[in-house]
C-alpha cells in the first residue's frame, strides 16, 4: 500500500470548509479571551484536565505521524529524483561531456589516419556524436534552471558548427589540400574553448543538484522523532498521573497508544538510518568513483586529441604539445587522477583490476608519446604518425584504446553500484510512510479511547 498524501483524518474537509465565517480581529481577540477563561476553568477539574491531556496527545501524535510520513515521502521523492530528474541530468551531462571529448579525439585521429582505418575511427566519431546529441536531448528535457538551459542552448548551437568544421577538414584532406588541417584545428579549438567548458559546467551544476538532493535524502527526521518522543513522554506521564488519580494501574487505551508510539518511533529511526546509509553508499561506491573516472576518461581523451593535433600541425603547434603535457600530468602525474583512483579504490576487488590495467596502459601511452615526439622532431613524420595512430601493438592507439576500455569497465561497475544502492535506499523506505501514519493514528485512537473512558466515568 502506498500513501499519496499525509494522513489527515477525513473529518478535516467537512470541518474546515470555506463556509465557516471568518471573524474580524476584534472578534478573534474576544473569542480568544473567552476561550482562555473557559479553558482555565475547565482545567481545574479532572475531566477537563483529561481532555487537556488528550488535546496535547492529539497534537503530538498527529504531529509526529504527519511529519514522519511527509519526511519519509519527501525522502522517497528525493531518492526517486536522484534516479530521475537530477540523476538523469547528471548522467546526461556526464555522457555529453565524455561523448564530446571522444568525438574530438576520434575526429583528430581520423584526420591523421589514412584509408580504411580512417573510416573505422570516423565511425567512432559518428557514434560519439550520436551519444552527444542523445545526451543533449535528455539534458534539454531535464534542466531546471535558466543557467543550465542556457548552457544546453549554447551547446546545441555550437555542435553543428563543430561538425561542419570537421567535415570541411575531411573534405579538404581528401582533396589533398593542407587547409584541411587548419579546419581540423579550428574545430578542436571550438570544442576545447567553448563546448567542453560548457559541458563541464553543466555537469558540475547537475552534480551539485544531485548532492543537494542526497544531503536532503540522508538528513535525519529530527522534528518527527522529537514529536514522537514528546508524545511518548506525555503518554507515560499521563499514565502515571492517572494511576495516582484513579488508583488504577493500567489504562488499556493509553498502554496501546504507548506501544504504538514506541513502534512508530523505532520504525522511523531505523528507516531513516537505513536509507541514509544506502544513500551514503550510493555516494561513496557510486557517484564518487563515477565522477573521478569520468574526469580521468575525459582528460585522457583530451590528451589524445592534443596529441593528434600536434601531428596534424606537422609538429609545428607548440601549444598543442603543452596542452598534451598538461592533460597527461593531470592524468598520470603524481597525485593525478589515476593515482587518486588507485589510492581510493585500489583495494576494491572489482575495481582494482581495471584500474591497475588502466594505469599500465596510460604509462605505455605516455612513454610512447615521447617516442612519437622524438620521431616527429627528427623529421620522421610518417613513422611518428604510424606510431601514434597505426594499428600495430606498439601503437599509441592500442594503449589509448586499452585505457579507454579499462576506464569504461570501471565506470560500468561503479554505475551499477550506484543504481543498486539507490534502489536499496528506495526499497528501505517502501511502505514506511503508510505504516508510520497508521501507527500514529492507532496511537491517537487508543489514547482517545483510553481517556474518553475515564472522562465518561466522571459524567456517569
Amino acid at each position: 500500500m502506498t500513501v499519496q498524501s499525509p494522513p489527515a483524518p477525513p473529518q478535516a474537509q467537512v470541518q474546515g470548509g470555506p463556509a465557516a465565517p471568518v471573524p474580524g480581529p476584534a472578534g478573534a481577540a474576544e473569542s480568544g479571551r473567552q476561550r482562555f477563561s473557559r479553558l482555565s476553568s475547565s482545567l481545574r477539574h479532572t475531566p477537563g484536565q483529561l481532555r487537556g491531556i488528550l488535546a496535547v496527545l492529539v497534537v503530538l501524535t498527529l504531529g509526529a505521524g504527519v511529519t514522519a510520513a511527509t519526511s519519509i515521502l519527501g525522502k522517497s521523492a528525493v531518492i526517486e529524483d536522484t534516479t530521475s530528474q537530477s540523476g538523469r541530468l547528471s548522467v546526461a551531462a556526464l555522457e555529453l561531456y565524455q561523448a564530446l571529448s571522444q568525438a574530438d579525439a576520434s575526429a583528430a585521429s581520423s584526420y591523421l589516419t589514412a584509408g580504411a582505418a580512417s573510416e573505422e575511427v570516423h565511425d567512432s566519431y559518428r557514434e560519439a556524436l550520436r551519444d552527444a546529441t542523445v545526451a543533449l536531448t535528455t539534458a534539454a528535457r531535464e534542466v531546471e534552471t535558466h543557467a543550465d538551459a542556457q548552457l544546453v542552448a549554447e551547446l546545441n548551437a555550437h555542435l553543428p558548427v563543430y561538425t561542419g568544421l570537421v567535415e570541411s577538414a575531411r573534405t579538404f584532406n581528401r582533396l589533398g589540400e593542407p587547409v584541411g588541417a587548419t579546419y581540423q584545428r579550428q574545430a578542436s579549438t571550438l570544442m576545447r574553448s567553448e563546448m567542453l567548458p560548457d559541458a563541464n559546467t553543466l555537469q558540475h551544476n547537475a552534480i551539485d543538484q544531485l548532492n543537494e538532493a542526497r544531503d536532503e535524502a540522508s538528513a535525519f527526521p529530527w522534528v518527527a522523532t522529537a514529536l514522537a518522543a514528546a508524545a511518548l513522554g506525555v503518554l507515560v506521564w499521563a499514565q502515571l498521573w492517572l494511576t495516582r488519580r484513579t488508583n488504577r494501574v493500567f489504562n488499556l487505551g493509553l498502554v496501546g497508544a504507548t506501544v504504538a508510539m514506541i513502534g512508530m518511533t523505532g520504525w522511523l529511526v531505523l528507516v531513516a538510518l537505513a536509507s541514509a546509509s544506502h544513500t551514503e553508499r550510493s555516494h561513496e561506491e557510486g557517484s564518487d568513483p563515477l565522477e573521478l573516472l569520468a574526469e580521468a576518461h575525459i582528460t585522457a581523451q583530451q590528451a589524445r586529441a592534443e596529441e593528434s593535433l600536434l601531428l596534424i600541425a606537422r609538429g609545428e603547434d607548440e601549444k598543442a604539445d603543452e596542452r598534451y603535457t598538461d592533460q597527461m600530468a593531470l592524468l598520470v602525474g603524481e597525485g593525478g587522477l589515476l593515482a587518486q583512483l588507485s589510492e581510493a579504490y585500489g583495494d576494491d576487488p572489482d575495481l582494482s583490476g581495471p584500474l591497475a590495467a588502466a594505469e599500465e596502459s596510460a604509462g605505455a601511452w605516455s612513454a610512447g608519446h615521447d617516442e612519437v615526439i622524438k620521431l616527429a622532431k627528427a623529421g620522421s613524420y610518417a613513422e611518428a604518425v604510424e606510431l601514434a595512430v597505426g594499428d600495430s601493438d606498439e601503437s599509441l592507439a592500442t594503449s589509448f584504446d586499452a585505457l579507454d576500455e579499462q576506464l569504461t569497465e570501471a565506470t560500468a561497475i561503479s554505475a551499477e553500484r550506484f543504481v543498486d544502492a539507490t534502489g536499496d535506499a528506495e526499497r528501505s523506505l517502501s511502505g514506511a510512510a503508510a505504516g508510520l501514519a497508521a501507527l500514529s493514528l492507532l496511537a491517537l485512537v487508543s489514547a482517545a479511547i483510553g481517556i474518553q473512558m475515564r472522562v465518561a466515568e466522571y459524567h456517569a
Partner: protein
Amino acid sequence: MILHRSTVPQSSAKRRPRWAAALGACLVAAACSGPVSIEPPEVDVPTPLPEGIDFDPEIETGTADDSCEPVASYSPGSVTAEQARATLGDQDLVVIGISQSTNLMGYRDPVTGDLAGFDIDIAKAIVSHLMGDETKVKWVPMTSGDREEAVNSGTVDMVVRTMTMTCKRWNSVEFSSEYYHGGQRLLVPTGSGIGGLGDLTADHQVCTGKGSTSPRNIAEQSEAQPVTVPDFNDCLVLLQQGTVDAITTDDCILAGMAIQDPTLEVVGEAFSQEPYGIAFAKGNTDLARYVNGVLETMREDGTWQDIYDKWLAEHLGAATAPDPVYQD
C-alpha cells in the same frame, strides 16, 4: 487564521482534525514547490575563431634597421664540397630545418605524406651537390620562431624555411645569397573589387600572421584594419568563412593558399621586399660560401627556373632568379 475561526463553542474532539489538516497542509506546502518556469535562452550566432586571434593588434612602430645590406652574402670563392661537409655536425648526413605546413614552399603532401615544395626542392638540389646523394639528408620541421636558435645550437646545419634576410637576423646567423625574392601582397576573393592596397578602406579587415612584419606593412601603407593570428594558415580559413576580407603576407605563401581555393586570387603589386635566404650558424661562412656556389650553378643550369615554374609561376607569374649580391 484557522484556529481563530473557532468562535462557535466546540468540543476538543471536533477541533482536533482541523489542526491536523492545517499542520498537514503546511507540511505539504513546504515539501512541494511548484514547477519553475525557465526563461528561453538567448544564444549568439557562433563564429568559430582560431585561438589567439587579435582583431585590433598593437602595431610596432619605429624605423626599420637598415644599417646593412641585407641581401649581401659571401662570394662562393673556392670552398669545396669536402670543406663544406667538414662543418656539418654529421659528415654523412646534412640536417636541414624546414617547414612542413607552408603550402607550396615546404609542406607534407596530404595524400603521400611526403615533403614537397619550393624550399624543399631548393634544399634537395643543395643536398645532392653537397653530399653527392639526394637522400643523405635529415629533415627537421620547425616553427619560424625556432629557426635562429636551431642553426646556432647545432640542431640543424641549415634552415631553408621562407626566411627573410634582415639586418637584425644577420646579427645572429649567416645567410646565403638571395634564393627567392618575395614581397608582401594581397589574397582576396575573386570579384571582391579589391585590386590592390589602394582599394582597401578602414572597413576592410586584413588577416596576417602575428609577430611578422606584415601587420606593420599593411597598417602603414593602407587604411585597412589588420587582424593577426598566431599561425597564418588560420587566415585562409577565416577568409573562406568570411570573417576577414583579405589576407596579406609574402606572395609565395599567398600562392600556397590560392592554389587550395579557386575562388581566391593574389592581387596588387608587392608592397614590401622579402629577400629569402638560407640560414647557417653564425660564423659558418664556409658552408654559406659553398651553398652560394651551388645557388650560382642552379641559376645558370636552369634548376632554379624549373623549381620556380613547377611551384610558383602559375600563381605569381613568370620570374627569374634574383641576382646574387656579395659583400666581399
